[in-house]
C-alpha cells in the first residue's frame, strides 16, 4: 500500500484531477454565478502543484535525471511550469482568470498524456543522467516551453477579451479578464523571458553539440533551432511594432501549438530502451 501511494503516476493523476476540479469549478462559477472563485482556485492549484512536484520528483529519482525523456514527461514538465508561472504571475500581476485557463490547460494535456500509455515509453538515460550540462539544457528548454504555454494562454485571454469588446459583449468571463493593455504587456514580457531562457538553453546545448558532434540528432537540432528562430523573429517584430494586437496573439497561440508537435520528431530521434521508466530503480 505504501509503495502504491509513492508511485509517481498516482501523484501526477492526483494533480491532474485537482486541476480538472479547479477548472470545472471555475467554469461552473463563471457560467452560473458570474463570479470568479479566486481563493478556491488558487488553493486547488497549490495542492495540485504539490502533488505534481512530488510526482515529477519521484520520477526523477527513478530515472536518475531530470524526467524529460519521453512525451509524457515532457508534457508533465510543461504543464508543471505553466502552473508554477500562474502561481507566480497570477497574484503578482493580478492576472484574473489565468488560473482558470492554466488549470484547464494542465488538466487537459496532463490527463491526455496519462491516458496514452505509449507516450510514457522507456528510454535510454544515456547522457541525460551523466552530463549535468545536458540536464541543464533540457530542463531550461522545457521551462521555456512552459513559459511559451503561459504566453499562449495569456494570448488566448487577449483574443477572448478583444473579441468581447469588438462584438460588444459584456456578459460572461469578458468582464473578469484582465484589460487588453495589461494582457498585451504581459504577453510581451512573457515572450521576452521565454526567448531569453530558450536562448540560454540552446547555448548550453550547443556547447555539448560542438564537443560531441555525433551525439545530437539532426532532426532535433533542426526543429529546435527553427522554433527558437521563429520565437526570436516574433519578439523582434513585436519590439518594433510590426506584429501587434490580435495578430501577435494568434501567432503566439499557433507557434506554441506547433511547438508541441515538434516534440514527436524530437522524441522519435531518441534511442529507446526496453524498460518502463516508472518501474526503473535508481
Amino acid at each position, binding site marked *: 500500500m505504501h509503495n502504491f501511494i509513492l508511485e509517481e503516476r498516482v501523484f501526477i493523476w492526483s494533480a491532474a484531477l485537482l486541476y480538472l476540479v479547479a477548472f470545472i469549478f471555475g467554469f461552473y462559477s463563471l457560467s452560473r454565478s458570474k463570479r470568479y472563485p479566486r481563493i478556491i482556485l488558487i488553493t486547488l492549484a497549490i495542492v495540485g502543484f504539490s502533488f505534481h512536484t512530488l510526482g515529477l520528483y519521484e520520477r526523477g529519482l527513478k530515472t536518475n535525471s531530470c524526467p524529460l525523456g519521453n512525451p509524457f514527461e515532457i508534457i508533465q514538465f510543461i504543464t508543471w511550469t505553466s502552473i508554477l508561472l500562474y502561481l507566480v504571475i497570477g497574484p503578482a500581476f493580478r492576472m484574473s482568470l489565468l488560473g482558470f485557463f492554466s488549470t484547464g490547460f494542465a488538466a487537459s494535456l496532463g490527463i491526455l498524456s496519462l491516458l496514452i500509455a505509449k507516450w510514457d515509453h522507456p528510454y535510454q538515460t544515456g547522457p541525460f543522467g551523466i552530463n549535468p550540462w545536458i540536464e541543464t539544457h533540457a530542463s531550461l528548454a522545457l521551462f521555456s516551453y512552459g513559459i511559451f504555454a503561459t504566453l499562449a494562454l495569456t494570448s488566448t485571454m487577449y483574443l477572448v477579451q478583444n473579441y468581447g*469588446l*469588438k462584438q460588444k459583449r*459584456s456578459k460572461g468571463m469578458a468582464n473578469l479578464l484582465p484589460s487588453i493593455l495589461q494582457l498585451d504587456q504581459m504577453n510581451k514580457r512573457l515572450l521576452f523571458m521565454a526567448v531569453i531562457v530558450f536562448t540560454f538553453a540552446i547555448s548550453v546545448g550547443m556547447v555539448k553539440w560542438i564537443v560531441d558532434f555525433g551525439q545530437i540528432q539532426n532532426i532535433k537540432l533542426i526543429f529546435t533551432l527553427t522554433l527558437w528562430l521563429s520565437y526570436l523573429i516574433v519578439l523582434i517584430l513585436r519590439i518594433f511594432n510590426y506584429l501587434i494586437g490580435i495578430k501577435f496573439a494568434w501567432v503566439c497561440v499557433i507557434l506554441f501549438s506547433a511547438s508541441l508537435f515538434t516534440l514527436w520528431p524530437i522524441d522519435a530521434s531518441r534511442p529507446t530502451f526496453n524498460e518502463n521508466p516508472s518501474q526503473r530503480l535508481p
Partner: protein
Amino acid sequence: MQKELLLFATTHRTAPLEIREQFAINSDRIASLYTGLCKIESLEECLVLNTCNRIELYLISLKPEIKRAVENHFCKFHNFKIGHLHKFSFWKSGLDVVNHLFEVSSGIDSQMVGETEIIGQVKSSYKTAAEIASVGPILHRVFQKCFQSTKWVRNNTTIGEGQISIGSVAVDLALRIFGNLTFSRILVIGTGEVGKKTVKALKSRGANSISVSSQTFDNAEKLANEIAGQAIAFEDLPTVISNFDIIICSTASSKIIISSSMIKSTMYRRPNQPMFFIDLAVPRDIETQITNTPNVFLYNLDDLAEIANENLNSRIGEIDRCRQILQERANRLWSSLEYNGIIN
C-alpha cells in the same frame, strides 16, 4: 365639437439608430417644425418632444384626418420617403397617449430604463411649446398631471435605484481596455450633457488628463474650466487626436467628425496603444468603419444602453408596479377630461 388627443412618434423601440439620426432635429430647426405643424388645418394644439431616442408629436385635433397631413409635413421636413415612415413610427390616440406620456416621462419607456434625464427633456419641450403658444388647455393639463405622476412614481417606487448610467458602463468598458484610468488621456468633443456626465464618471475612477474640444471654442473653454481640463481648438483635432486614449463625442453636428481614414493614420502613429471611442451623438459623429482598425473600440449610444439594460433585470418587477400605478393615474385624468366633455 369634441377634440381628439393624438400621438405620432418614432422612438428607439421602432427605429434603429441609423433611422433615428435621420430624424434628429437640432434646437435651431425645432421652430420651423412647429411653424409647419401650426399651419395644419384643424390642429388645435401641438407639442414636440425631441430627444436623441425619440421624436414625439402630441397633438390635439378636431379631425382625425390630420394624420396624413402630419406625416407629410414630417417627411418633407426630414426629406424622408413617406412609404418607409410607417415601418419606423406609430400613432396612438386617447387614453393610450396619456399612458404613453406617463411611461415616457417616468423613464419606463427609456432606452436605459429608469433614467431621470427624460423628465427634464419633457419639461424643456413643454416649456418651448408654451413659449410659442402651441399648447392649449388640454395639453397643459395632460403635461402638468404627467409631471405630478412622474414625481410620485420617483418618490414612491425604487425605479430609479441602483441606476446604471451611460457613464458607469463607459467606465467599465474603459477598464476592460486600459485596466487603470490614471494615465489615460481623455478628449471630449462637444459639450453635451451626456458627454459631460461620462467624463465625470471617468474622472471618479482616476482619470485626470482631460481635454475638451468644441466647434465653438468658448464652449470648450467653459466646459474645460468646469471639469478642470484643457480646451483644444476644433481645427487641431486631426493632428492631436493621436495623443488621446479615450475619445467621447457628443456634438450636435450633422456631419461625421471622426472618419475612418483619420483613425487609420492615427493608429499608424500609435499602433500598439488601444483607442476607445464613445459616440453619444445622434446623428453619430464617428464613422462606424473605424472598428475595422485593430486596437480601436467604438461604442455608440445604443451599445451602451443595451449593456446597461442587461444589468437591469432586477428592476423588471418594479417596472410592472410603476406601469400599474401610472395607468391608474392616466385613467383618472382621462375620465375627468371625458366627464367635462372636452375630449373624445
